[in-house]
């Protein structure tokens, strides 16, 4: 009897689940039919933009600073009269360091809030999660972080560096310094693995040897063995694509093992001013970083940006490359809209190519076909004060090449 009752309950539950699933499918189909583009709501004297960053979870540490600099740009633009005479109203959402949440919140910003553009995402995983949402709805995302390249979406503008503007110049710098062998250390996810594929192809074509390649899971803080391996490999340099907290543990271990910038320099692509503060300058002294912007980058535009940021968020808050790229993204969107004379996504996209802006990092130009931006590569050295000073730059902005088509050694990468 009890078994029978159990079965009835089970059957009831199953029926409910099936019904729920059908309902979900139903709503999905209706979504995609209406998904030929939700136009932004610009009827009043305001225009909404979406801010999609992780304010909680493991990525909050980085993404909160990006949110802060987007807000700064929005306020500045509003104070100067807004865009096409309309004030920008920012609508913030928390991606919570969870990729499905990013997709869900992106859908909400586009369909419910009807924003004209969305600024945000940090990890490649979150970008990959929202990409189909923006493409389906024909809405715009401005992505402000350096990434692994090999991507191009008609509805995403990439204002951070792609590989030929960060990783390849970093390798060029090592080569120019006479480094013949490298050891690769990275976090275990798409960015470091793709970056290392590119580094290995570069090394093969340029007479460098890759002595080893090790990955640590995101969040891993035990680097005894990896540092042991690095040390016994006796490489000329280490190329570091670790992300987040792992960097702290890695550099502490590295220093304890007696390694330093003189005996074996490390080039990092995910350590900016904010991360230097969290790792400790005593562990990072004179180590190298590859970015497009530093707080110390000279120029009036940067002096203004740094002063405004510190005035708003505190004198002890450093500015970093992703923050600058996010700040620039808002201004670039404003320039695009102004040139297009409309908030319409297709018109904005058509107007984008060739737009230039005197950014804190120097002059940047939007590349129409790839929707990336041309920017100057800068190699920096961590100083005792925790700031990074430039030791080399590419001299002029590098044209973005996300698929590395102009590099013969990169054929076959995808």
């Amino acid at each position, binding site marked *: 009897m009890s078994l029978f009752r159990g079965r009835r309950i089970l059957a009831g539950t199953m029926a409910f689940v099936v019904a729920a699933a059908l309902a979900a499918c139903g709503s999905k189909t209706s979504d995609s039919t209406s998904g030929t583009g939700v136009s932004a709501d610009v009827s009043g004297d305001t225009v909404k933009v979406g801010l999609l960053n992780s304010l909680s979870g493991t990525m909050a540490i980085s993404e909160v600073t990006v949110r802060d600099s987007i807000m700064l740009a929005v306020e500045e633009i509003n104070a100067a009269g807004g865009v096409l005479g309309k004030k920008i109203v920012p609508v913030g959402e928390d991606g919570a360091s969870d990729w499905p949440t990013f997709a869900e919140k992106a859908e909400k910003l586009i369909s419910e809030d009807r924003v004209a553009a969305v600024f945000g995402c940090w990890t490649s995983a979150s970008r990959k999660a929202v990409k189909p949402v923006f493409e389906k709805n024909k809405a715009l995302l401005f992505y402000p972080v350096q990434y692994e390249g090999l991507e191009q979406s008609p509805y995403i503008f990439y204002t951070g560096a792609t590989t030929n503007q960060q990783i390849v110049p970093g390798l060029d710098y090592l080569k120019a310094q006479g480094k013949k062998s490298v050891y690769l250390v990275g976090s275990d996810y798409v960015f470091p693995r793709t970056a290392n594929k590119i580094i290995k192809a570069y090394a093969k074509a340029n007479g460098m040897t890759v002595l080893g390649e090790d990955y640590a*899971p995101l969040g891993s803080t035990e680097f*005894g063995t*990896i540092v042991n391996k690095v040390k*016994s490999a006796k490489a000329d340099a280490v190329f570091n694509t670790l992300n987040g907290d792992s960097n702290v*543990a890695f550099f502490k*271990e590295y220093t*304890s093992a007696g390694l330093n910038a003189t005996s074996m320099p490390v080039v990092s692509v995910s350590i900016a001013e904010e991360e230097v503060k969290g790792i400790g300058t005593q562990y990072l002294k004179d180590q190298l970083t590859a970015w497009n912007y530093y707080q110390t980058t000279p120029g009036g535009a940067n002096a203004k940006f740094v002063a405004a940021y510190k005035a708003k968020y505190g004198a002890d808050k450093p500015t970093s490359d992703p923050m600058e790229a996010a700040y620039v993204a808002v201004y670039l969107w404003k320039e695009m809209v102004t040139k297009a004379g409309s908030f319409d996504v297709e018109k904005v996209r058509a107007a984008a190519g060739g737009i230039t802006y005197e950014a804190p990092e120097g002059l940047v130009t939007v590349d129409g076909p790839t929707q990336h931006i041309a920017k100057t590569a800068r190699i920096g050295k961590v100083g005792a004060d925790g700031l990074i000073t430039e030791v080399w730059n590419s001299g002029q902005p590098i044209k973005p090449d996300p698929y590395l088509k102009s590099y013969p050694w990169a054929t076959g990468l995808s």
Partner: protein
Amino acid sequence: MTVLFGQLFTGVSIGAVLLLVALGLALTFGQMNVINMAHGEFIMAGAYTTYVLQQTITSAGWSLLVALPVAFAVAGALGVLLEVLLIRRLYARPLDTLLVTWGVSLMLQQAARDIFGSPNVQTRAPALLTGNVALPGGITVANNRLFILGLAVAAVVALTLALRLTPLGRRIRAVVQNRDLAAVSGIATARVDRTTFFVGSGLAGVAGVALTLLGPIGPTMGTNLIIDAFLVVVVGGIGQLKGSVIVAFALGVLQATGEYLTTLSVAKVIVFVAIVAFLQWRPQGLFTLRTRSLA
């Protein structure tokens, strides 16, 4: 040979970290059977204590030494607060305790984020602990790892002696072995519970101080450690310290060896497979406490 010894030392020092992290839990979970998911956040509290002390005491060496007892007291006090406010009311409901302490862990993380900001903070390590000792044959041993190994051993010895020799230790063991009998013998079990929780949580604070030498100091640092800590106690066997000690070092060496021969991710898999296999064979863990208690 050099590499082999280096790896052996790495394994032992991973074990020492595991042991420090798990030692407090061996008391609160192992002895009292409380599943405290906020244990990791007590570790975090210890680490932040070091950071706060360094703002006032400029000498890195002194601040670290002062941080050890202060962090013990801070984390212990947090533990007592948690015990008095919540856990005491849930002793017979382990699942509720798990959920409630998990909630507390999230609240403590957010509190740390609000007080210290979401980015990691840094502490300065004393110069003595940043270098390494060169042994004959090109072998180097990192000073901070040696310090942590020493601290772990000292903590185990102190805790063992305290449990064996002091009246308080005897009362703790009496309550663990048979709560009812202890109560009728005139032991104030509620007070013993509170003290046990204070010591267990305090040890988490000490672990936090040690971890500032190795890893990041941020709001989420505890969550990375809590699983490993539970593993050590479960595999070591509930109610016994020696099980946790042996298992911590065994897992450390296994992890280091696996990592050297394969990769970090594969090594983690190897460790987990070994643990599952071991628990199939001995579900009660390495050692068990034999009592005549009916519970």
